[in-house]
């Protein structure tokens, strides 16, 4: 069974927003409505983004991966916003930097091991030529879900990691 990280109801395309805070709020509302995060998730992410921004200066299409501590998460998911017009996010690792972001992946992950594994897959996916362009050009949530399914290649169901020992 495939872990469904991205579901159609968690994808906003095209997304209209004027600021990173608006993007995070819109995606957070979807996550909260779906029962993936607690009501504290949105304020926690907004606060974290001020100190530790998550905009990645990927080639051509900027990406941001807002997330926060596990305590605000109920079950794992990614909410995706594909912006009609890029929105400025702070640049990860560079307090003075700003990245024009077109794709936002809001990560809801409650276990740090799972977050690491997800980030590794996402980073590889973002670096696969043409993938970000395909997401940016997607016209429907279904298309976005399909692209993530194809490139994230996640075979483990959520919460069912390899048994230990």
């Amino acid at each position, binding site marked *: 069974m495939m872990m469904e990280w991205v579901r159609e109801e968690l994808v906003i395309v095209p997304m209209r927003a004027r600021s990173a805070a608006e993007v995070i709020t819109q995606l957070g509302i979807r996550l909260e409505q779906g029962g993936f995060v607690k009501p504290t998730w949105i304020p926690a992410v907004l606060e974290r983004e001020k100190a530790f921004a998550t905009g990645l200066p990927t080639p051509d299409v900027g990406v941001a991966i807002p997330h926060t501590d596990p305590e605000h998460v109920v079950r794992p998911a990614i909410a995706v916003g594909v912006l009609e017009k890029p929105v400025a996010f702070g640049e990860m690792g560079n307090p003075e930097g700003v990245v024009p972001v077109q794709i936002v992946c809001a990560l809801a992950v409650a276990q740090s091991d799972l977050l*690491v594994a997800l980030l590794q897959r996402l*980073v590889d996916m973002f670096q696969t030529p043409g993938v970000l362009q395909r997401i940016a050009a997607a016209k429907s949530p279904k298309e976005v879900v399909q692209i993530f399914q194809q490139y994230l290649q996640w075979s483990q169901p959520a919460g069912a990691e390899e048994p230990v020992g």
Partner: protein
Amino acid sequence: MEEKRVLIACGTSIATATVVAEKVKEIAQKAGIPVKVAQCKAAEVKGRIETFRPHIIVATTLVPKDLGIPVFNGIPFLSGVGVEAVEAQIVEALKKA
């Protein structure tokens, strides 16, 4: 060759540091340099310098500039932009360290 110590510093979560740590281990292995990698949060960097005594630091967040140890930007490992350049710099620094 003597084992080189690399400290990976990140923001609040250890997740990005772990992703970068794996990449650093890979490139060091490719270059035939034995490395030991430790991770910490940005606020812990100064303390870890005392205890871990890293040869270099790779950071995905801002760390103090006056550490006396070469600091490299780990973001290219996440964004894919400028990876080759930073890989080469890290290998060079590890060889010299």
